[in-house]
């Protein structure tokens, strides 16, 4: 379509379009960017929200990431943004990200040198040991990464593809290595909360499939009427307010009156679980009388979170996949039938590729959503994420640090880290998950 281009010197003449955007822009500036900038600023502060507000530099991040604080996250961030820059196709984004990445590299190198210098001048054996032990593997990984990048762009044939593969794998290994670093010296709870996130994401990956199958089934039904009926039926569960859904499920899990325990006792599965616990699991959770507190026992919290909402029910997903399936023309099916493709073949060769856009989009939204989520755990388990913090997510940890511990500065630092992780995922998403029209 033809688009009105407005030159810089004509801006004043077109004041009306700025007036039209004004409510949005002013609102977003005050209520979204205002707090965000404040939050970023306060991640360098010791701040309790009221009285104490002092600048403490990188201390929050040091607590978060441990001894490797000053340079290691930057190095890794540099690596990751650099890759992101390469992956992104937009020129501007590409350039900005690449220069950010290189900047972070340089900063990291300087910080590393300073750290090493301090370590030597302090002659503190412990800190020197840590610095050097962290220094070596990262250097090796950096070398490997640069080699694989060179191979990717300069190499030929097999070598190029090897380089291509490795420049994705190495940052991944670096990330894992880094996470173990956090585990050793940084905030242990944070590491644990990320552990939970990995589990939840893996589970959500499996949870996507029933929705896809259901959508395909509805799509393949012969009668239009049934299709419409099912579509409406899949909308209806959306009328349950989220809070009601959460509270009803909390009731399902109730140890004394909950439906789940009653169901298990009714079907005799409780005996099986008691037997399993006695001879195989040795948890001491399932005993006679059978009253496991699904949300109150540290070993049961993660299974309960996974089973929450029934793993095989995904209502909104079904509707979104259906919208993708509708674009498949009848002629494609007829051609497939002529070729003698069976129904599984139709699924893998026609339907799945055509809804891949929606699947990928859902995947990314799901990962970002899981990373940010905390409300669900807050209602089910309380601000600490249940006994032994088993249900703690990074978002909930932030909530806990700010509202329970009045440790706002630290919470802001966690938030900043989350933001960068999500941003990174989004950039990857931009590269791989373009919505094809």
């Amino acid at each position: 379509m033809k688009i009105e281009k407005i030159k810089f010197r004509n801006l004043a003449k077109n004041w009306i379009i700025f007036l039209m955007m004004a409510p949005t822009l002013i609102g977003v500036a005050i209520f979204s960017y205002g707090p965000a900038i404040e939050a970023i600023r306060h991640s360098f502060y010791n701040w309790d929200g009221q009285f104490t507000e002092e600048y403490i530099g990188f201390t929050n991040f040091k607590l978060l990431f441990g001894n490797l604080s000053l340079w290691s996250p930057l190095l890794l961030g540099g690596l990751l943004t650099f890759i992101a820059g390469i992956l992104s196709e937009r020129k501007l984004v590409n350039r900005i990200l690449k220069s950010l990445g290189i900047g972070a590299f340089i900063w990291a190198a300087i910080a590393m040198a300073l750290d090493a210098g301090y370590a030597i001048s302090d002659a503190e054996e412990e800190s020197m040991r840590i610095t050097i032990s962290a220094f070596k593997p990262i250097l090796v990984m950096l070398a490997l990464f640069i080699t694989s990048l060179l191979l990717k762009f300069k190499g030929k044939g097999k070598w190029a593809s090897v380089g291509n593969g490795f420049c994705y794998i190495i940052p991944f290994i670096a990330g894992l290595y880094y996470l173990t670093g956090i585990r050793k010296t940084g905030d242990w709870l944070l590491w644990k909360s990320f552990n939970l996130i990995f589990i939840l994401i893996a589970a959500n990956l499996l949870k996507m499939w029933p929705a896809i199958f259901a959508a395909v089934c509805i799509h393949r039904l012969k009668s239009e009427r049934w299709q419409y009926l099912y579509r409406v039926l899949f909308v209806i569960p959306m009328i349950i307010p989220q809070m009601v859904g959460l509270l009803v499920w909390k009731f399902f899990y109730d140890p004394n009156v909950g439906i789940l325990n009653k169901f298990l006792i009714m079907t005799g599965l409780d005996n099986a679980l008691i037997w399993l616990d006695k001879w195989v699991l040795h948890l001491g959770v399932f005993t006679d009388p059978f009253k496991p507190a699904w949300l109150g026992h540290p070993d049961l919290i993660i299974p309960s979170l996974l089973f929450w909402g029934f793993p095989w029910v995904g209502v909104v997903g079904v509707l979104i996949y259906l919208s993708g399936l509708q674009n498949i023309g009848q002629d494609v099916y007829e051609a497939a039938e002529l070729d003698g493709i069976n129904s599984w073949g139709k699924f893998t060769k026609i339907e799945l590729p055509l809804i891949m856009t929606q699947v990928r989009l859902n995947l990314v939204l799901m990962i970002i959503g899981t990373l940010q989520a905390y409300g669900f755990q807050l209602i089910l388990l309380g601000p600490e994420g249940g006994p032994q913090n088993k249900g703690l997510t990074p978002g909930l940890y932030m909530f806990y640090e700010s509202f329970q511990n009045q440790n706002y500065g630290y919470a802001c630092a966690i938030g900043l880290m989350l933001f960068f992780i999500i941003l990174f995922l989004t950039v990857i998403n931009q590269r791989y998950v373009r919505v094809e029209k």
Partner: protein
Amino acid sequence: MQKTKLTHEISKHGLILFILFFAFLPLYVMLVISLKDNIQFVRSPMLPSAPYHWENWIKGWDLVGKYIANSILVAAVSVIATLITALLSAYVFARYRFPGHTILWYLLLALLFMPGVMNIVPLFLIMKNMNLLNSLWGLTILYTVGGQVFCIFVLRNFIEEIPADLFEAAMVDGATPLQQIKNIVVPMSGSILATLAILRFLGAWNNFIQPMIFISDEYKQLIPVGLMRLDGEYVKQWGEMMAGYSIAAIPLVIIFLFTMRLFVKGLTAGAVKG
């Protein structure tokens, strides 16, 4: 051949119904328990049993009725405000290119990736300075701002797909941007606007973190927090509680009844395709 076709059809229905059964289970449990007193509830929570205690619903209304009006007010006003402001901005983003266009656009999109918790404390202070704490209007403004990005994103994509000739013809006739929106965009985007409205309404109805933190007076509280308080009581009257939960869903039921067609159409036409 005919026989296998039939079994195919049946197995498809079977799978769909299996998923639907479990999707409806919480709804069913909620409705069944809402008609029981505590004794009946302990004896058999799953099956309906006489006598039916309809008075639970009256008590349930006493428990949650006061919150419903607040929630409807906030949700309805914020949905209308969101749609109007988002439509105006989306039109500008779709139809004009001006210096700073791309940067503004990316700044808006970046909001989708901010972890919400990070903002809450500074937001609290900003609201306090603006005297918007503990006020339904403050909450309405927050919900309106919160819904902007998603709506603008969807509407921009939609407006860009409207044939340009329409706008050009209107311009020749001397239509102002506002008239163009009123006469071209709004009539064409009925189902998408309805879908966005419902999604935003659901969002406002379900949001509980912000009311929990920004509203302190009991009589100004919104429904999710009200329900949460109900759950926190020590001696639970399960029947009344579930009746209260069911009542909290009624406004959504009414809205879905009226807009179901548009919503199903809008969703399947790809309003949320991205």
